[in-house]
């Protein structure tokens, strides 16, 4: 067991003893076997000296118990790291930023406070999972559609606090953006509520975000200014009808016209999440192996660092009768309206030479329609929680050697074809020069459109449990990619603890004043530096000098 820096064994033991008294001995975990489960199972620094390993965990059941934990931690200056359901695999799992930090596991706080399908909102605690909320909605016959990430075992609250994203309609895909009002235990143990939640007897906690005065909620996401114990979310009504239809284009450069058209439709509110794919892209093949099938010829093209050239992929696509790109347009609403929007889309894209249109699926009342809930191609498009994303890295024709996990590289790119193709150039060049074999980088990589107004250029960097040298190179590759991306104005929206300092450093305008401002706030709000040291790259004064 690693003690946190600057905490004596005697103080650690005293804090643990007080946790046991207040929370109950059965909810305080310090045994190796228990604590091991809070390590990041997808860590690139697994079993390395710098792997951040917690010293223990405590599982409070109420906001009052969270307050008690925070007050005890303050007394002994014991650093804490709150998790909701702790399932943030690919972005750090449930591991803290600093070894010795004590986990505050909030899964016992799993109450669904309210779900309202007339005014379309919910209020939940951190331990509620997407599966829990979905089951509650189904059981009570609520006419609501959730917006969920991959996979569904995580927590709406926890996902929002890491700026997680989803798959349905514009603003709902931004999970932090669609939250409304929160309850937070501050580093001194006081409870604060924000927005209309701060108004006693207000009925509008989850409906009006701002109330009056400064909007401080952003301080509690990807940051370390408190432990969020309740959050409200705006929700969307279950649609009358769902239609998914595909536009396919044959050439690489058709991406420009495709994106322009999709932006035009989405910004008018005519479509939900547009899902881009290329039948030759390694990640698409891993996510949908039953649809996008590799050949040995394609595996050879994809097998070299940075993939093959545009010309070679275009030739492959022509030879095999494939499109270079496609985009799945998801329509929600009255059947008549969405059919008209689909007709409009075909007119809009009709000028692209060689364009093809295909209606993929169409379901009335999709969330009460068994055929839809069990048969829809992408369950996430209807907000139905699932675990299918774990096919990534698993053994398949496109991935003969399975990985032991992955971390996501996820820089933000402008929402245009030119910008995305520029990113192709930069990242494939980097992959070739750095001989990156741990990640599928190529000119077939597709824009990920979860964030409503920007793209994420996403690829997994694969992890090995048996090859430390592979991981060490992957860490170095990842750091190089962060630097190369930042040189072009691109940087991550979210990252695992190992890379959070580096990513925070790329938001560097005016000598990193953004980070320095957060540090000033940190020192004022959390003078003992107990709350999630290092989260979001924000270190308290106490650990700033020696931050890992």
């Amino acid at each position, binding site marked *: 067991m690693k003690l946190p820096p600057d905490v004596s064994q005697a103080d650690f033991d005293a804090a643990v003893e007080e946790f046991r008294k207040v929370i109950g001995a059965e909810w305080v975990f310090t045994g190796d076997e228990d604590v091991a489960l809070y390590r990041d199972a997808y860590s690139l620094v697994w079993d390395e000296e710098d792997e951040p390993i917690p010293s223990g965990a405590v*599982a409070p059941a109420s906001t009052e118990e969270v307050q008690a934990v925070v007050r005890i931690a303050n007394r002994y200056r014991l650093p804490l790291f709150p998790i909701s359901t702790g399932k943030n695999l690919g972005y750090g799992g449930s591991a803290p930023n600093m070894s010795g930090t004590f986990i505050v596991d909030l*899964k016992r706080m799993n109450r669904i406070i309210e779900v309202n399908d007339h005014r379309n909102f919910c209020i939940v605690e951190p331990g509620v999972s997407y*599966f829990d909320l979905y089951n509650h909605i189904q059981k009570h016959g609520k006419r609501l559609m959730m917006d969920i990430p991959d996979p569904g075992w995580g927590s709406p609250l926890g996902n929002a606090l890491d700026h997680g994203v989803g798959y349905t309609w514009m603003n709902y895909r931004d999970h932090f953006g669609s939250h409304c009002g929160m309850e937070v235990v501050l580093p001194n143990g006081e409870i604060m509520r924000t927005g209309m939640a701060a108004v006693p007897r207000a009925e509008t906690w989850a409906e009006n975000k701002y109330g009056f005065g400064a909007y401080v909620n952003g301080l509690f996401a990807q940051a370390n200014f408190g432990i969020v114990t309740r959050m409200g979310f705006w929700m969307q009504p279950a649609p009358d009808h769902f239609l998914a239809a595909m536009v396919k284009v044959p050439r690489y450069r058709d991406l420009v016209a495709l994106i322009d058209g999709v932006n035009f439709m989405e910004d008018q509110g005519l479509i939900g999440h547009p899902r881009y794919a290329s039948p030759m892209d390694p990640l698409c093949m891993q996510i949908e192996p039953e649809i996008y099938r590799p050949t040995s010829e394609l595996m050879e093209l994809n097998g070299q660092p940075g993939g093959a050239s545009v010309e070679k992929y275009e030739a492959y696509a022509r030879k095999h009768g494939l499109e270079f790109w496609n985009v799945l347009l998801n329509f929600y609403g009255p059947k008549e309206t969405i059919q008209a929007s689909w007709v409009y889309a075909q007119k809009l894209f009709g000028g692209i030479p060689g364009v093809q249109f295909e209606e993929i699926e169409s379901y009335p009342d999709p969330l009460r329609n068994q055929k839809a809930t069990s048969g829809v191609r992408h369950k996430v498009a209807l907000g139905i929680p*699932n*675990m299918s994303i774990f096919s990534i890295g698993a053994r398949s024709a496109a991935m003969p*050697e*399975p990985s032991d996990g992955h971390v996501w590289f996820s820089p933000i790119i402008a929402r245009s074809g030119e910008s995305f193709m520029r990113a192709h150039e930069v990242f494939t060049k980097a992959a070739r020069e750095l001989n990156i074999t741990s990640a599928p980088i190529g000119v077939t990589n597709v824009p990920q459109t979860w964030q409503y107004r920007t793209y994420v250029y996403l690829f997994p960097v694969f992890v090995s449990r*048996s090859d430390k040298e592979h991981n060490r190179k992957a860490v170095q590759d990842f750091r190089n990619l962060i630097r190369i991306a930042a040189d072009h104005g691109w940087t991550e929206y979210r990252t695992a603890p190992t890379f959070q300092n580096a990513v925070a450093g790329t938001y560097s305008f005016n000598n990193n004043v953004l980070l320095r401002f957060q540090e000033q706030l940190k020192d004022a709000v959390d003078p003992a530096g107990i709350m999630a040291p290092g989260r979001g790259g924000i270190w308290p004064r106490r650990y700033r000098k020696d931050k890992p």
Partner: protein
Amino acid sequence: MATRRQFLQASLATASLATIAGAGDPAFAAKLGASNDRLKLEAALFEPRRAHSAGFAAAARRLGLPTLDIVHDITPVWLRVVQLWRNTPAAIAGLTSRTPLLLLEQSARDYGLRVVWRGEHRLAESGMITHSLEGPKGMLRTFERGVVHGADYDICIAHALISGPMVFGRDQDARLETVTTANGSTDAAPLYSWIIARRNHAFERGATA
């Protein structure tokens, strides 16, 4: 964790590898030391596309244990297991790739369940399969006896996990490192044998409801 455990070292590379016909029969189980002193397992999980995993499942069925197959999307099996755990701390076993084990282990902790047997089975460059096993001593002995008799390792794993004597407690845990012939297998991706069962812990049945 490992420091609290006893370690057994065994080298079975030179053991007789004659195949035993009728593995899965009561007679075979008797040879392996099948015991009534064991935990009741509810199901065995496997991946039909992995030959050894499928072999394990076939042996499990012969031993009377229902099996659940993971084809591509783990969601149906995961939901079924978690639903089971919501109602009872059921013990399950598997011989799968790493991801199903990881997902179930992460979920198991919420219900007071732990991995109490963990084995890695990896094809080595030598053409042999290396087995790194950690679990109750009696079960390790059952596996060991099976491979000495020359049965395929997947069958031996099924017998060890399903029929082997399972006395819990950290002082009962041991580790076994051994190798067997690959018997023609070229599947380079490792498989993991496992049992998830209850060990004293607070996240118990109903505690998180």
